């Protein structure tokens, strides 16, 4: 029955198994992890990467890990050299300048061999509750360098040829604040990669390693073809959009994200030239994170039926100049790159493409995690504790439906922590979890509404941090729809105190980003997530649908009148209805009036545009980048001379040296390059490559 070439059906069978294996990795992780961050927060991803370090399949709960995972594998292979990867190895790495996103995201990589043949790699990347540094449970909103953000780990071998190097975990867990739980989490990550190994080997045992290779090639081709079909569906042309980061935490100055997208047939170029220089505060996005975010946006257009893997990436060229906010030079801090700037990148690309892809995507979304974190000592439970809240909100409306309410932003997907669970384990008392009524941008299709969560501290001397976004510039509406509401973080003292913004109460530079503030018992915090932008003219939204919005608590009676011109009444049977005549008159009056929400957004954008006009790169960063580029080009030239350009560019060479790898040359930093040169004593390189 065995056939020399892989038949169509068998190819389909093996292809779907890759996805299943990744899901099973995730299942193992959820069932065994300690931290609620993994279990409820789903802040991890599982992937299979092939022997060429290309993504084959992923069960992603966190899209910010998307393409960065394969980039991390590629870094590991380049760094150690492809001949130094052995069965029984497990690599561990977290550095944002080495394929990572931000420091708490720790990646485990297990090469999988069928006898001596490398089948691929199992990858598990997960956000640990703490990674040391200046903020309990992470998110130092005012960090000025990556060193303040926590422990940097280059690729290290936790296991080598099956032997555990326990020193690695001892070393790491001494440098984090919740070693016992995190120890369990490392075990869960490890178990997840073992699951992948067992399942991939079973598959290989059944169909043979060659069939696995062929099926890997086919799933990539499949994804590529579907991606090209989608791009071909878009009209050719150049499309631009400008998004802003509110501020960088250290100062109140905004940053600009400029994107120009060129669609040509079935190819696309996404160019971030014009983006602000890297920031002083933690709103820089590592190169890998920028790639992930870019593909995240593209996948929003593609939808869930396209298997996502390296094939999706092939038709898309991404240009990110070194030294800009989206490809920074170390030691620029990157903590908020993963949770915040990634969403701004998605928004920028969606903003550029929404007008030509209104059948696939829609208006801007609330777009933040807020990342309210902290901890201290809990005298009642006699233990130190940490917490990390990330929050859902309203998504943009689109041409065929209202925006989703209370849904995690595109760069994540999580369950919330049950109130009863939070109160049982932390010295916090939830005071309310309710809809942020009227936060959705009015439109013919309404933007989704956000959530209001109020929490009271029950312990003394609680340290708190935050790293949020979209507190200043609201998400855009489309086709005449209004913007959604901004996010906000407020506090008050006691149940009778006045609600104040963090800036008012604690005199921070930023309303959304701060670090290490101390608060006491009975301080109340209120996290208010905003809503999505609306789509189309709110005055043509059918009145019955506005009535239903009131019935469901999404729109207040007052806003039904002020935003939609619908006069809400109580029917004789005590249900909610509307006054048809009054509504018509009100709508007629409103038709020529300016729309306040749109004006407010325009003013905020204008201010940000002016503030970002003259931003320049720091001298230190400029010189570092110069040195890096110089080192790369001279070494690459030397290699080419020795080898002849043909062999240097061959595929095998791409995984041999960073200088012959098209991606590595775009982001490897000077430190990685120098270490590589020391490690691979560069006179050895040519012989190794022959």
């Amino acid at each position, binding site marked *: *029955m065995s056939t020399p070439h892989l*038949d*169509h*059906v068998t190819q*389909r069978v093996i292809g779907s198994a890759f996805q*299943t294996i990744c899901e*099973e990795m995730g299942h*193992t992780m*959820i*069932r*065994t*992890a*300690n*931290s*609620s961050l993994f279990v*409820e927060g*789903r802040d991890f991803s599982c992937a299979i990467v092939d022997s060429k370090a290309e993504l084959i399949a992923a069960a992603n709960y966190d899209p910010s890990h998307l393409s960065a995972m394969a980039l991390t594998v590629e870094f590991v292979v380049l760094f150690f050299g492809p001949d130094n990867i052995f069965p029984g190895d497990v690599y561990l790495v977290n550095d944002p300048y080495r394929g990572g996103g931000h420091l708490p995201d720790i990646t485990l990589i297990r090469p999988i061999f069928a006898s001596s043949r490398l089948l691929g790699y199992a990858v598990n990347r997960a956000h640990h509750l703490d990674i040391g540094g200046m903020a309990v449970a992470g998110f130092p909103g005012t960090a000025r360098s990556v060193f303040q953000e926590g422990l940097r780990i280059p690729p290290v071998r936790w296991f080598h040829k099956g032997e555990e190097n326990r020193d690695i975990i001892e070393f790491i867990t001494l440098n984090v604040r919740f070693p*016992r739980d995190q120890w*369990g989490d490392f*075990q869960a990550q490890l*178990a997840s990669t073992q699951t992948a190994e067992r399942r991939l080997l079973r598959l290989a045992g059944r169909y043979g390693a060659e069939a696995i290779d062929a099926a890997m090639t086919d799933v990539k081709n*499949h994804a590529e073809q*579907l991606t090209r*079909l989608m791009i071909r569906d878009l009209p050719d042309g150049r499309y631009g959009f400008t998004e802003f980061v509110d501020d960088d935490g250290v100062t109140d100055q905004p940053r600009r994200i400029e994107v120009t997208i060129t669609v040509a047939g079935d190819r696309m170029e996404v160019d971030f030239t014009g983006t602000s220089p890297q920031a002083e505060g933690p709103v820089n996005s590592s190169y890998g994170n920028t790639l992930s975010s870019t593909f995240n946006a593209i996948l*929003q257009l*593609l*939808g*869930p*039926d*396209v298997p996502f893997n390296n094939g999706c990436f092939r038709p898309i060229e991404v240009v990110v100049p070194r030294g800009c906010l989206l490809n920074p030079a170390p030691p620029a801090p990157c903590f908020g790159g993963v949770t915040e700037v990634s969403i701004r990148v998605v928004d920028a690309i969606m903003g550029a493409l929404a007008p030509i892809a209104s059948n*696939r*995507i829609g208006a801007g979304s609330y777009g933040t995690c807020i990342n309210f974190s902290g901890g201290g000592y809990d005298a009642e439970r006699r233990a130190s504790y940490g917490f990390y809240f990330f929050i*859902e909100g309203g998504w943009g409306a689109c041409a065929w*439906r209202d925006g*989703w*309410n*209370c*849904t*995690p932003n595109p760069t994540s*997907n*999580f*369950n*919330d922590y*049950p*109130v*009863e669970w939070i*109160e*049982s384990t932390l010295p916090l008392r939830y005071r*309310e979890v*309710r*809809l942020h009524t009227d936060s959705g941008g009015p439109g013919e299709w309404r933007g989704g509404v956000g*959530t209001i969560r*109020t929490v009271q501290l029950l312990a003394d001397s609680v340290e708190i941090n935050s790293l949020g976004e979209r507190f200043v510039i609201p998400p855009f509406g489309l086709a005449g729809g209004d913007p959604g509401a901004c996010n906000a973080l407020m506090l008050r003292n006691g149940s009778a105190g006045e609600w104040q913004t963090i800036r008012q109460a604690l005199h921070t530079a930023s309303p959304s980003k701060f670090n290490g503030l101390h608060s006491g018992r009975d301080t109340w915090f209120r996290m208010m997530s905003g809503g999505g932008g609306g789509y189309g003219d709110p005055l043509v939204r059918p009145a019955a649908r506005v009535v239903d919005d*009131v019935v*469901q*608590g*999404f729109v207040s009676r007052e806003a039904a009148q002020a935003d939609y011109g619908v006069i809400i009444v109580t029917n004789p*049977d*005590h249900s*909610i209805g509307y006054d048809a005549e009054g509504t018509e008159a009100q709508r007629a009056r409103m038709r020529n009036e300016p729309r306040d929400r749109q004006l407010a957004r325009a003013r905020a954008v204008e201010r940000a545009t002016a503030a970002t006009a003259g931003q320049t790169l720091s001298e230190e960063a400029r010189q570092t980048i110069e040195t890096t580029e110089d080192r790369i080009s001279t070494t690459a030239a030397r290699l080419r001379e020795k080898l002849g350009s043909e062999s240097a560019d061959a595929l095998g060479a791409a995984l041999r040296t960073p200088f012959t790898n098209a991606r590595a040359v775009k982001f490897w930093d000077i430190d990685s390059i120098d270490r590589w040169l020391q490690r691979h004593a560069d006179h050895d390189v040519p012989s190794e490559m022959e």
Partner: protein
Amino acid sequence: MAYHVGVDVGGTFTDLFAIDDRDGRIVLEKADSTPDAVGGVIAAIRLSGIPPQEIETLIFGSTAITNALVERKLSPVAFLGTDGFTDTLEIRRLWREHLFGWKWDRPRSLVDHDLRFGIKGRIDWQGREIEPLDLAGVDVAVERMRQRGIGVVAVSLLFSFLNPTHEQQVRDRIRETSPDIQVVLSSTVNPEIKEYERASTTVIAAALAPLAEKIMSNLEAQLSSHGVPARPQIIKSNGGITSSVSARAKPLEMARSGPAGGVASALRFAREAGVPNLIAIDIGGTTADVSVITGGEANFTQQASLEWDIPLRTAMVDVRSIGAGGGSIASLDATGRLKVGPQSAGANPGPVCYGRGGTQPTVTDAAIVAGHLDPRHFLGGRMSIDADKAREALRTTIADPLGLPAERAACGILHLAATRMAQLIDEMTVQVGLDPRDYTLVGFGGGGPLFLSALVTETEAAAGIVPLYPAVWSAFGGLFADVVHDYAKSCLAKVESLDLDLLNGVCAELSDLAVADLSRDGYGLAEAELRFKLDLRYEGQSHEISVPIGAGPPFGRDSLATARARFDAAHLQMFSHQRNDPCQLVTVRLSAAVRRKLEIPAARPAAAVQDMPMAESQVWFHGYDRALSTTIVARSQLGRGSLIRGPAIIIEPQAHCIVLPGLEATIGGAGEILIRRAAA
């Protein structure tokens, strides 16, 4: 007295299955279902010719409640929650169904904002009252309910699973002021931690109450007026049965009763045939439903989703479905790659070969084209099949674009459908540390026998079994099911320092509930087998594993140590490691079962395909580039011990059993077809 009758009320037909306990004679009947779910039962009894007064047992299984839930055809209910938290029903657990893409609709909340009422008052995480209940708020809410004509209210307050006093105060107040409003408390329905899951479950229970009341009272009345002496018993989601009186009181337990009948059949078979490890595969028109039985016990789940992120917590047999049934549509995607399902042609228009206007080839069409289904005997020959039309549709939409002969494409479709089912079986076994090689598959429903061979091959299961009457096996299940009640209560504590009085107190509470339910069903506690389980996890984890506790009650330290050891072993089996960490108790569970004994002479086949001599035919199979000469034989002609080598097709009125090349079938002692890999 003589007849034991099982009825399975489906959307279209009501199936009846009866056994005469005097001689083992079996009666099968079918009637059209009626909207009230009961009319079809009476019609089927009449058609069957069974004298109503001779019906000793009547077991009722129905998808009516499951369907009402799925289609949201429920009575409107109001919701009372802790002030500040009533929007939980809209906010839910947040996450979206797909990571990417905007083509998704977030389901509507179970209760609209204007029928959700917040009541002031708080219980804290240790069960202490920190703010008194505001009864005046209850009165205001009740007034609004009256104005709106709402007759049922679900009450779910924070931490009520630890301290139900506030909920009970609410109930008492409403009883006092408005006795006509039915009150459903979360502390009664589902006293477990996680406020959203508990609230959602409570609302579903409240919404089902009027429907269950209507169906049950109608069933009782109609049976009695037609002279049936048996008091009806109802199949529950846990694979057990209960009296119609209990079913009314606890409608939630029927939420997933649809597929439970098949599981009950499989459980009975596992015990009687001495095959303790079974995987039951029920393949119908739109889905394949899979459940796993290990050591004679069905694998359970405590939570299911009504819709995306709308959970329901109750003890249910873990039955999982995939959209790969006879009506599943085969198609090529935009890049020309083959896929099967999840779209289904359903019963209308149905497969192309039905000739009812279906144009997209389905799994059934593929089976016709490959020769796996014989058009002359399809559905007992009652339906005329247009094989040419099926072949043409399959050729133009699938085979030609793939450059394959229609028959090979058809085999590809069948194989792809089978591997999707096999993946589901893997997910339910391998993923939780079970080895399919230790299991026997049992295939039933119209399509089960068709795929069984392929599934034995794909999953590497020990063997496959097609029972007698595979097409109506689900109806048959309830007849032999036990009376089973399940209970759970959250109880958060460290196992190592657990207060035994607390544990035994919770166990006594659960036992009391069991006593009440069993007595409604007509049994005493002495007749029941009580099994306590603990949901444990390593401290810090968020997922538990349910393990039986050692001897008791009352339980001592040694019982806890046994439970802990079992937990470690289960964790090791499922996740390849165990830990020395402290262990945490989350929930105490009790299952109270009364084993019913039904002494019946060996069943005799009822109907058979007549006048069908054994023959050879040319049939296509996946992996072969030509048709193979295949034995075609009527099941009724195969005596016990007969051996048929694959490739073969064993035909009976409503099912075709495929024996793939390399496999062989024998007829077992109970008349079952046993499929195994042929000895080399």
